[in-house]
């Protein structure tokens, strides 16, 4: 079997245990995330796992790539500990403020600089923005076909993959020739745990850092200036309702509730 080189795109996301610390800057309309630790997105772990499994089956190389501020190195180190052969960080002030289009553009140029890939893996959606748009957009910029919502993936023949695209109440099985972009769901696999070997690999490997110029990205197409969408406003969500607590003996509150619901016309009157 021909060796298969995979690139896995991983996104730094604010650690979910600290989400209540994400606050809104009312003036700038941006989210303040300072001091919140970052983590490797859960689906990105599944994406990495699938790439590692392919490498085990067919040989080849696994490269993790991420676009983010310098602190993003941490999650790339994780990727190496888990088994990635190399890791690339696209980091540059010029990348900041990117929407999915500009994020995808930067990642696509990074992947081109790596010499392309046979399979480019994504999580189906990120934990924070969770638009699920970056994968298909990278595919367009690299002129590769894409399949998202993948919960089963097999190698077929010399140069193809069979992917199960999960849709509402069913699935579509497709066969695609490589190179291809695949975005995975949680159910595709069970990500492995780090091993002691991993920490040893980490000592031998360096994380490659590339700037916008290094990958040859057009400055007009990255970061905030390159983003076709803009956030015009951000608000925190009010889910508060009237919160009337009914108290008393179970049978009394039950009757009381029924009366209230009838008065609100959401239950038919007896």
């Amino acid at each position: 079997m021909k060796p298969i080189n995979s690139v896995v795109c991983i996104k730094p996301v604010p650690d979910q245990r600290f989400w209540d610390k994400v606050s809104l800057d009312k003036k700038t309309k941006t989210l303040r995330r300072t001091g919140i630790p970052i983590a490797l997105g859960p689906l990105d772990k599944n994406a990495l796992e699938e790439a590692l499994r392919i490498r085990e089956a067919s040989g080849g190389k696994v490269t993790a790539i991420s676009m983010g501020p310098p602190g993003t190195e941490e999650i790339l180190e994780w990727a190496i500990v888990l088994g990635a052969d190399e890791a690339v960080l696209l980091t540059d002030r010029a990348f900041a403020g990117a929407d999915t289009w500009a994020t995808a553009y930067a990642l696509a140029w990074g992947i081109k600089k790596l010499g392309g890939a046979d399979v480019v893996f994504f999580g189906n959606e990120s934990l924070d923005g969770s638009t699920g748009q970056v994968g298909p957009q990278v595919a367009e910029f690299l002129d590769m076909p894409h399949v998202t919502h993948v919960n089963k993936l097999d190698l077929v023949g010399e140069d193809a993959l069979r992917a199960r695209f999960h849709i509402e109440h069913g699935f579509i099985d497709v066969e695609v020739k490589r190179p291809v972009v695949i975005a995975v769901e949680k159910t595709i696999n069970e990500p492995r745990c780090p091993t002691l070997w991993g920490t040893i690999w980490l000592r031998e490997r360096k994380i490659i850092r590339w700037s916008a110029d290094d990958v040859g990205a057009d400055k007009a197409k990255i970061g905030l200036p390159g983003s076709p969408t803009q956030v015009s406003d951000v608000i925190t969500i009010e889910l508060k309702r009237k919160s009337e607590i009914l108290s008393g003996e179970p049978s009394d509150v039950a009757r009381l509730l029924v009366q209230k619901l009838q008065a609100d016309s959401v239950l038919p009157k007896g």
Partner: protein
Amino acid sequence: MKEHKGILVFAEQRAGKLSSVGLELLGIGRKIADKQQEELAAVLIGHKVGPLADELGEYGADKVYLADNPLLDVYRSDAYTILMQEVIQQYKPNILIMGATCIGADLAPRVAAKVNTGLSAHCVGFDIDDQGRFVGQVPGFGGAVMASVICPNHYPQMATARPGFFEKLERQKGRKAEVVKVDVKFKEEDLKIKVVGTFVEELKSRPLEDADIVVAGGYGVGGKENWKLVEELAGVLGAGVGATRPPCDEGWADLERQMIGQSGKTVRPTLYIGVGISGAMHHLVGIKNSKVVVAINKDPNAPIFQAADYGIVGDLCQIIPRLIEAMRVSS
């Protein structure tokens, strides 16, 4: 005169049946079109789907772009992207909305990159601002924040809409849309994605999204045995049964059909009753559109009480049987 005019929606169909979200999009589109005095068009792609064009007209479309060909029988991103691009170039819409279904979410970002425009993701609200710009309300961080996203300098202004969040219009029998045929210029050999099989489960019961009353159970229900209590309460009310994530993980409920929230379904019943549910944001975003929310939880500090109209603090094993009695008596 504006170069980009009209609102275009993607009328998703599967196996010759229009998806509910396609009709919801026509509902959104009609409102904007009337406000802007523009036209509302739909794109319909598939095989032997011609008759659906009439249905789209009855639900509000003025025009239907129809691509009908055996190569389009089952969705694949490469074929559908080519046709979307074709229609966009012909029609030059001001706004393009697609459903944030699995298929819509797979197709929309590809189309946006192809025609070089921005895309607002799984919106739960739309507006036209005072400068005439299309604004999409995009939830983030599991629904804790809401961003207003615009796309000021690129066309079409694109968005995906969250299924179940918007109302379809009343069907107007006999209302007609003009049908414009779109030619398919590619062959099977030109496509990189080959469909090798499909499977769609027959839905026996009414989908939860359409239920007038929803009774949802959480991890606090405690087990399969107690889950029957939840189902019994729902039975008395003629309600659909929903769940948070943990009961689905435990196997008391079905993830695909019953999970409500950020990664599951959005319900919009007149009455929602949540039992043994703490009230995580991930779940609450899916019940936001309920008319009246009732919460039953033994912990008086459970966050769900803040998001409920009526709360009962107590053990569900004692409350539910009494509630079933009271409902029976009253009906």
